[in-house]
């Protein structure tokens, strides 16, 4: 077991502060109203697992078949480890995740470089089953282990100028995919602060109850289930609070194809393909049946409109795609 996992296994004895408590309540209500879940919300369902820490089942889950762990960990977009879907798992060994630290800077009162242990220590780990919709029109259903992004961000005390949060992927290691100029390294992503603080935004350190594999963004990655997958940046080494819209990698590469928001939206086509449908990669890997797996309808905000729709209430989403 990794040291930092042990560290993270020490659960905070602090009582949940009232705001967080209220938010959780609100979430539970919202979730119940949205009919998202069958799980009982507040009961911590601790189980022993290879993550080396208790994982609480959360009320975030979705109906339908899970993607197999094999599929979710062998079919990846992680261009630092190669552009083919099978490259990241093959090249995973090149990514060194120990030691790991995350630099926090910008518009906040507690900037600094924090070790991963320090980052993880206070957080209880929960499991959330989220839909993942790739901009390439395929999708998965994945059980992530982690904690709410907002709970992490609040610890750094963002100030009133913090209108956005920018993230960066590790780039000081010579990863095989970085020899290509396919993107302008480091990989960058960003969220508006209200998006980042939304309880649905998640920071994952595990999946399927296991430590997150390198090809999936070890040791810590974002999961923003209502946006296209490339927004969920992997292997994070920097988090910056900014007052200006941060530059994001795919937007820099092809601004007319990939917007800053990149919310899942069946109404707004990618210039080169329709986003109205998606191929669910939830069956077993291989075999002839996968050839005839039907495409299913894509939902606005990936089916999370009840939770996050209000974030975009007054926006022209064809313009701010």
């Amino acid at each position: 077991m990794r040291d930092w996992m042990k560290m993270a296994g020490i659960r905070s004895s602090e009582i949940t502060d009232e705001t967080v408590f209220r938010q959780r309540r609100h979430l539970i209500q919202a979730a119940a109203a949205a009919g998202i879940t069958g799980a009982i919300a507040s009961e911590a369902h601790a189980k022993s697992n290879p993550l080396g820490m208790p994982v609480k089942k959360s009320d975030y889950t979705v109906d339908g078949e899970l993607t197999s762990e094999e599929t979710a960990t062998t079919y990846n977009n992680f261009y630092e480890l190669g552009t083919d879907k099978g490259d990241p798992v093959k090249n995973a060994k090149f990514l060194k995740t120990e030691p790991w630290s995350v630099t926090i800077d910008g518009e906040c009162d507690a900037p600094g470089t924090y070790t991963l242990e320090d980052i993880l220590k206070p957080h209880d780990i929960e499991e959330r089953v989220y839909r993942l919709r790739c901009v390439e029109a395929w999708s998965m259903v994945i059980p992530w282990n982690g904690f709410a992004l907002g709970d992490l961000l609040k610890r750094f005390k963002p100030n009133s100028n913090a209108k956005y949060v920018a993230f960066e992927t590790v780039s000081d290691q010579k990863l095989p995919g970085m020899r290509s100029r396919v993107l302008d390294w480091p990989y960058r992503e960003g969220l508006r602060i209200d998006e980042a603080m939304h309880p649905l935004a998640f920071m994952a350190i595990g999946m399927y109850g296991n430590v997150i594999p390198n090809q999936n963004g070890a040791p810590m990655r974002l999961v923003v289930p209502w946006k296209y997958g490339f927004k969920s940046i992997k292997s994070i080494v920097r988090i910056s609070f900014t007052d200006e819209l941060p530059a994001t990698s795919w937007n820099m590469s092809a601004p007319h194809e990939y917007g800053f928001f990149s919310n899942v939206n069946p109404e707004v086509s990618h210039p080169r393909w329709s986003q109205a449908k998606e191929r669910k990669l939830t069956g077993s890997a291989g075999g002839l049946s996968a050839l005839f797996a039907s495409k299913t309808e894509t939902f606005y905000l990936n089916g999370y409109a009840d939770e996050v729709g209000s974030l975009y209430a007054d926006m022209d989403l064809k313009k701010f795609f």
Partner: protein
Amino acid sequence: MGSSARWTWVSWLKIVVFLLLCAPAVAMVVAVVSGRAGPNPIEFLTHETGEMGLRMLMLGLMLTPMRWWFKSTVPIRFRRMIGLFAFFYVIMHFAIYTVLDQQLDIASITEDLFKRTYIIAGFVSLVLLVPLAITSTKAMMRRLGKRWLSLHKLVYVASIAAVLHYIWLAKGDQIEPLVYAAILAVLLGMRLWRKFRRG
């Protein structure tokens, strides 16, 4: 030159080349059935057949320069087979897109066909290859006479459209489409150069 009725080393070579060019199709089927193609076999087959179609087009365009180089018409005797392999892989590519990927969703295919330049380019390439495949027989060659050669110059346009299709669909600044563009530029450039030099 040797008539096709005679069983020569070229005939043997034709069998070998035929089997070699079938092999990728067999490998694709094996990869899908065994699961080695990964969890998204439709994407796998789309990419593989498309890539093979392009390779066959490039290979076909190499035969005439080879004829100049070796001062032999033997390469030309492989033109029909390689051209038909190009057509085969392109048709498979199209069938996988329409049947497996789009699941014959006519509205969606039509939208692609009218709105997306890389689909238009790919479709143009396919459509241009159809008359070439139909007129690839000896009988058609005889019937068309000189016009056969002019008609089959369409393969240049089909190849350009195929490379554009690849360039326009690739995500990010990927290198492979540009490699094909460079190869095609050399192959067509050689023809232009020769024509220009001869006046």
